[in-house]
């Protein structure tokens, strides 16, 4: 059977976290009553004010271009993309068609311990459109409503090269992109709220071929999971068609999350002619070196740099490094714990199992958690010094997670401190041995299981606070000598 190679390029749109729109002073806040965050500029009213560029949006886009290793344009220019639609107030979208903010960049994904660079063809700034709402579907709806609150919100589009080879790589690319943009603090990248949107261009070609096959464009994937599922489905659909000897129809397809299939939307053959030309209302704006340098200086350590540093500096396995650098906040938390307790792998284990388990169960992020990094460090110190057992530490951790309290306070309150005092333990061991002569006899007749029973009894007597290593040692000594 013929073997195919999957070729995927992603077009990602993210809304920028600016307070105001791209060319006017209207608020960008999400969730306001329809058409309350509008003005003559973003409504495209005749005689409305002229577009005035939001410098913060430009700065954010330059920041992203730098973080994604792009070449930054020396002149900031905007063009008009002309088409008619009810959600587009001016009849044109202001975008960067001729000179995108950034070109020729890349980002790195890590998969099964291997790294791969995915090229970024371009990155540009443009206006978002309004939102249409229909009753049921668009065809049967008796009329439609339009909300222009979103019209003119700054939107950044990032177009990858067709370097992605699988649904899994697409997911990793998207996640890495989100991680980087979140590190930069320029977008919240929430796919479910639409602040991050992804379209995928998908084609297949015979293995070994360097030509691109006929592609379809896949839309309407509203989560990372649906990007993965949608692409998997579409790749299989294309493979089946190609194997049957038919050819792919280049078209836009819609991912149906409920049915788990893709459906044709409109044919690419009637693709619109956008008649792009430079917007005469927006003079070119020079991007001088000083400005770029100051933006570069404001970029924090990015996920990849952190990832390699964590491996190098802390000797972590790549998997741990990948998980811990997943968000800047988590990485910061990790390093803060390390300042109190310098056992990188132990801290990593605690964060990846206990902390992340609890966060996932509670459905919150690290920033919303009550537990403080310093306190986790303190808890691990206590474990390290043998003052409490690992098992006890887990229950203390639970309390810390729930209340945000100091671990020492919790230990004191619950009377959890480990009993490591040999005199105290000696008394308890004697009591337990006296109360269980049968077990002592069993031990001496070679039944090693009896030792476990006796330890259990001692632990029960001390409500689990006895230092288990010490108990084991003392008990064995006592039994051997008796």
């Amino acid at each position, binding site marked *: 059977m013929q073997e195919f190679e999957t070729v995927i390029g992603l077009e990602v749109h993210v809304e920028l976290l600016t307070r105001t729109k791209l060319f006017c002073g209207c608020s960008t806040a999400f969730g306001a009553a329809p058409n309350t965050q509008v003005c*003559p500029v973003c*409504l*495209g*009213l*005749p*005689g*409305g*004010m*002229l*577009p*005035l*560029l939001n410098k913060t949006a430009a700065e954010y886009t330059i920041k992203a271009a730098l973080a994604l290793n792009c070449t930054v344009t020396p002149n900031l220019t905007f063009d*008009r993309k*002309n088409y*008619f*639609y*009810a959600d587009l*107030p*001016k*009849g*044109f979208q202001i975008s960067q068609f001729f000179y995108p903010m950034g070109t020729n960049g890349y980002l790195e994904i890590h998969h099964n311990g291997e790294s791969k660079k995915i090229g970024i063809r371009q990155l540009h700034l443009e206006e978002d459109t309004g939102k249409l709402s229909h009753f049921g579907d668009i065809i049967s709806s008796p009329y*439609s409503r*339009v909300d222009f609150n979103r019209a003119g919100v700054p939107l950044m589009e990032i177009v990858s090269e067709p370097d992605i080879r699988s649904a899994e790589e697409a997911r990793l690319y998207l996640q890495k992109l989100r991680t980087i943009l979140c590190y930069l603090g320029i977008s919240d990248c929430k796919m479910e709220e639409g602040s991050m949107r992804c379209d995928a261009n998908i084609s297949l070609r015979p293995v070994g071929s360097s030509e691109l096959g006929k592609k379809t464009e896949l839309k309407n994937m509203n989560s990372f999971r649906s990007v993965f599922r949608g692409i998997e489905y579409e790749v299989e659909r294309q493979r089946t068609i190609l194997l049957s000897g038919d050819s792919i129809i280049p078209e836009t397809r819609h991912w149906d999350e409920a049915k788990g299939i893709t459906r044709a939307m409109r044919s690419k053959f009637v693709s619109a*002619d956008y*008649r792009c*030309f430079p917007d*005469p*209302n*927006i*003079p070119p704006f020079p991007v001088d070196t000083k400005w770029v340098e100051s933006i570069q200086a404001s970029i924090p350590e990015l996920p990849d740099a952190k990832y390699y540093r964590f491996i190098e500096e802390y000797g972590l396995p790549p998997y741990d490094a990948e998980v811990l650098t997943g968000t800047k906040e988590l990485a910061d938390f990790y390093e803060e714990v390390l300042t109190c307790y310098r056992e990188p792998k132990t801290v990593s284990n605690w964060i990846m199992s206990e902390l992340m388990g609890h966060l996932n169960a509670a459905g919150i992020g690290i920033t919303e958690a009550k537990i403080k990094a310093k306190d986790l460090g303190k808890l691990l110190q206590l474990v390290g010094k043998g003052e409490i057992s690992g098992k006890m530490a887990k229950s203390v951790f639970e309390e810390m997670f729930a209340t945000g309290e100091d671990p020492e306070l919790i230990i004191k309150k619950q009377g959890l401190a480990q009993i490591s005092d040999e005199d105290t333990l000696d008394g308890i061991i004697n009591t337990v041995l006296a109360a269980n002569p049968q077990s002592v006899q069993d031990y001496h007749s070679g039944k090693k299981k009896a030792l476990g029973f006796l330890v259990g009894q001692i632990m029960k007597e001390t409500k689990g606070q006895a230092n288990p290593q010490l108990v084991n040692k003392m008990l064995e000594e006592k039994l051997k000598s008796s």
Partner: protein
Amino acid sequence: MSGDKLTAAELAASIKEGALQLTEHGENVSRLCTKAQSEFNIFINFNPNDITKESERLAGKVGSGAELPLAGVPFCLADNICTLELKTTCGSRMLASYRPLTEDGAVRRLKEKGALLAAKGNMDEFGIGAGGRNSFFGAIKNPCNPEHTGGSGAAAAVASGAVSFSLATDRCGELRQAAAYCGVLGLKPTYGRISRQGLIDSAPSMEQAGIIARQTKDLASALSIVCGADPQDPTSSSCGVPDFNALIEEKPRSVKIALPYLWDDLAALEGEVKDAIAALLCRLEGNYFSLETVPLEYFHHASTTAAMISAVEAFSNLSNYDGVRFGFRGESKHLHDMYRQTRTEGFSSNLKKFLTFGALISSGKYYHDCFLKAQKMRSLIKDELEKCLLQYDLLVVPTVPFKAPLLGSGISPLLPDFAAYYTAAASLAGLPALTFPLKDPAQKGGLPVAGLQLIGKAWDEKTLLQVSLLLEEELL
């Protein structure tokens, strides 16, 4: 009214001194405007009560002792410049009842200085040059001869004596052409001199507000007020604005004038216009002026180039007229049919041809061969003019190749647009240009013969005004 002969400054002075009562003056303006409107159809949505109300409001301001250099000076505003109190229609059915939410910055400045907004001027639909013959509100008649076009209501209102000056926009030369048709002065300042905020423009890269007046001093008075940087308009310039009132009192010394070689080699150029210009040029020589012929290669492609660029910009700029949010809406059940109905019924057929032309030459098929070439030609024209003006103070040409056309004669908003043959270059290059009226004293009550167009260096409106005043006072 006595205001007809007085300069704006003199009129304002007599009002401030109390020699002329504002209410009485307002009634006078109202009467003149009403008469002009009934004879020449120069206003849109004209209501004499608006003038009465406005003069009453001004009377209070004058009484308060505010500094009002234009107190009571009546002006007309082309109907594509927004005001909060009046409708702004752009001469189109599309906006027949549109009331803007913003006010033009220049208008606000004029009102602050006491100017009296008399009415909104009739105009070609969206200012797209058809010589005053393509307004939804009817053709504009020329006060010098109502059989002929007045070009624009703004120019005709000044020519009729109803107002002292007008504020209008100039795209490919419409303001200058209309002023020439009506025998009055018209000045298109340097691109960026006057804020474009509050204009409903169709060609943003060229369109610029300017002034029409009967007297050079009035041009200077109005210009001093409306010019200046506007932080709301990124295309406006922060270039300093001189006091043109004081500057024009200085006589220019030895002005070096360039005349394009073969300027009169144009079939559309009427003999009468050509003779009048040639005669004036002869008289200029030696009197303050030195005149030289210069070869200009690209100047002659300006009107074609401007038509192409302005058509593409208009096609895009007028895309917001879709019936969704404001203005005229053609009824239909489906979105795309609604667009089609709205734009079919809301725009005139001339405008639709022009917009279609713009859509065509910016489409993938023609982009490189038409639009991109026009953009390159624009750079060549601009460079050529700027180079020429490094050696000369002014470039002179006729304003329009012909006298005001007869009403009812054919309109061609498409190519070739000979009306813009001489005016388009300054629009493309963003340079200031002034039209000076040439009247034939022997021809009583007849049409003005021609306009002499002076094109100046960027930001040098001063020289244009000084030469205009000199021609007005000494040479003619």
